């Protein structure tokens, strides 16, 4: 198909980069926001704007809450989608109680799984979850959407498109293509070392966008590569479910020998037994971790088959001080508190895997590294966006001569995924501040309304970009770029103002108190608005011909 390897890589980079770039913009941007997903949750749920708390006492606070929990109608419906068996009248048999916290969470996430006796697979369960204030035990209302951790975060790995898991597959293919784009980009970039620090905004759009594309691609190359790669490794079980299909017999054989080795019961005994003191077990776990030189807080606690003689309690350490997602799990017999198993140190392969997944999932406590991650993610977005701009600039004259709509469509889609995506982000935050706490009867829940605001804003931005795209067919600039930049510049301070008006938290107050989650989100929104304003003004000057390089001086720039 091609005369040489470099040309084949250039073709691959251009066309796959263009098509999958639209998906990758969302993955990188919402991935960057996900670094501070829990802080965005604080902004979106003002009732949770207090300091992170340690795991509260199980015996005194969590146990009564767990005992009172039961699945909602929605939970039962969700489970019925894949459990093809009749649901019991009452959910009295608990398979699992779990609680999970991080060093960034003021509120505690708890969840429970209830047995479905008629189900074929004994592991199938109906799951329910709740968020509680660990200082008082009070539950947060169900329909408060955690915009960071339950919307932006899943968006970046699944596009929130769950039908047939298609969203996961689209992101998976895009990630593979990202890796291919990075390698092919290096193959194409002849002056990679000489141009390492080169950015010439005063030159033509085509040259300066290519400079910025190369710069942001190369300086964060290890970051871009590792994030795409580790993202794939994290979901390997979904993309290559070998051990649950072709190698299922081998997997079963292993599970059986492992159950014998670990001594952790695979099934319930069917005999009732009281639950011992979990607080005492936590204290013992902390004592053992300290004895190994790894003193720490509880990150997660799980109770399997509580109330049954085979029940056991698993306590995991919060891994804030290292990259690897370790748990140092210790398992206790639920009725007596006797230690059943202390997980041994990781094998070499386990350590490598934990490092790779931990690098991506970021449970560590290191604010500078988190901000550097955000920088990396945004650099990735700039790389993709400048890729689009370069593509259109390089070809729009040629498309205009051929009367092709390609340039116009590619450019409108670029606007949609750059400024349009930013507008939809502000859109959901604005909706979050405007929608009343109690939504009228019969209306969709608050969380759903916020999601409609997000997608609706994005669709509007796309329509606007297409409607205004006429000039691109004449090899000129689409005014929607400037218009959406100005819209962002206007809506950003509006968003911050709405936070002040509806919660009383303004920057002077949050900065004064040092309440960084909310101050950080407000400041980031204002930075976005400022950059959008600068960009809009620059585009307006350009459109008025004040900054442009005369057409006859613009020279063809080849890639690489």
């Amino acid at each position, binding site marked *: *198909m*091609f*005369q040489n*390897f470099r*040309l*084949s*890589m*250039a*073709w*691959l980079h*251009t066309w796959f980069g263009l098509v999958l770039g639209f998906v990758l913009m969302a993955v990188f941007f919402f991935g960057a926001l996900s670094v501070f997903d829990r802080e965005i949750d604080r902004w979106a749920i003002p009732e949770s704007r207090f300091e992170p708390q340690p795991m509260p006492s199980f015996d005194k606070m969590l146990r009564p809450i767990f005992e009172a929990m039961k699945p909602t109608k929605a939970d039962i419906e969700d489970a019925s989608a894949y459990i093809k068996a009749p649901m019991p009248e009452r959910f009295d048999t608990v398979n699992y109680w779990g609680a999970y916290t991080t060093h960034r969470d003021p509120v505690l996430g708890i969840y429970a799984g209830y047995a479905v006796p008629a189900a074929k697979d004994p592991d199938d369960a109906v799951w329910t979850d709740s968020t509680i204030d660990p200082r008082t035990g009070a539950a947060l209302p169900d329909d408060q959407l955690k915009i960071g951790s339950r919307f932006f975060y899943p968006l970046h790995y699944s596009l929130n498109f769950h039908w047939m898991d298609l969203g996961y597959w689209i992101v998976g*293919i895009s990630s*593979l293509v990202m*890796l*291919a784009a990075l*390698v*092919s980009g290096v193959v194409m970039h002849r002056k990679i070392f000489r141009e390492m620090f080169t950015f010439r905004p005063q030159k033509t759009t085509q040259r300066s966008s290519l400079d910025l594309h190369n710069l942001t691609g190369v300086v964060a190359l290890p970051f871009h590569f590792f994030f795409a*790669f580790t993202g*794939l*490794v994290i979901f*390997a079980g979904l993309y*290559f479910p*070998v*051990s649950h299909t*072709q*190698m299922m*017999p*081998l*997997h079963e*054989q*292993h599970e059986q020998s*492992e159950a014998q080795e670990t001594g952790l019961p695979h099934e319930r005994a069917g005999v009732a037994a009281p639950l011992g003191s979990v607080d005492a077990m936590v204290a013992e776990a902390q004592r053992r971790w300290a004895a190994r030189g790894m003193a720490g807080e509880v990150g997660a606690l799980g109770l399997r088959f509580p109330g049954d003689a085979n029940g056991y309690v698993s306590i995991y350490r919060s891994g804030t001080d290292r990259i690897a997602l370790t748990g140092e799990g210790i398992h206790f017999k639920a009725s007596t508190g006797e230690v059943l198993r202390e997980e041994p140190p990781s*094998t070499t*392969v*386990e350590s*490598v*895997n934990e490092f*790779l997944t931990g690098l991506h999932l970021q449970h560590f406590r290191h604010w500078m590294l988190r901000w550097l991650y955000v920088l990396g993610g945004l650099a990735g977005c700039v790389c993709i966006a400048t890729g689009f701009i370069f593509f259109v600039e*390089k*070809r729009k004259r040629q498309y205009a001569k051929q009367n092709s709509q390609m340039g116009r469509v590619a450019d409108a889609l670029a606007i949609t995924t750059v400024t349009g995506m930013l507008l939809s982000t502000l859109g959901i935050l604005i909706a979050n501040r405007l929608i009343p706490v109690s939504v009228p009867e019969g209306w969709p829940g608050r969380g759903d309304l916020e999601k409609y605001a997000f997608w609706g804003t994005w669709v509007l931005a796309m329509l606007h970009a297409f409607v205004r795209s006429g000039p691109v067919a004449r090899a000129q600039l689409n005014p929607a770029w400037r218009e959406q930049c100005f819209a962002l510049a206007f809506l950003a301070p509006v968003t911050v103002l709405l936070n002040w008006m509806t919660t009383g938290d303004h920057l002077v107050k949050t900065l004064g108190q040092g309440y960084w989650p909310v101050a950080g989100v407000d400041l980031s929104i204002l930075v976005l608005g400022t950059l959008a304003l600068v960009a809009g003004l620059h585009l307006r000057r350009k459109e008025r011909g004040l900054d442009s390089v005369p057409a006859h001086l613009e020279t063809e720039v*080849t*890639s690489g």
Partner: protein
Amino acid sequence: MATASSVSTRHVVSRIAAALLGGYVFTWGFIALSLAGLYGLGMRFHDAEALANIIGFLLYLVVFLWAFGAGRLNRVWLVLVGGGLLMAGTGALIQSLLV
């Protein structure tokens, strides 16, 4: 700009399919073979699985790029699908010996 020498749409589609689908079959075969093979050699199950996955994705990247860089498309299809099936088959054989 990189233009393909005049080729049919069918060829382009076939090449993309070879890279994506052929690459997938090849990678699946590799993971199946590595998982069974390493476990058979005494590695812990989840270690074998993790290692197979990690190297598998890197391999997928390599064959994906190769599918575009290589000359004859028929050879690409043969190597990727044929190789993948051969590896998957060998993995199945190893499994039958172990279980």
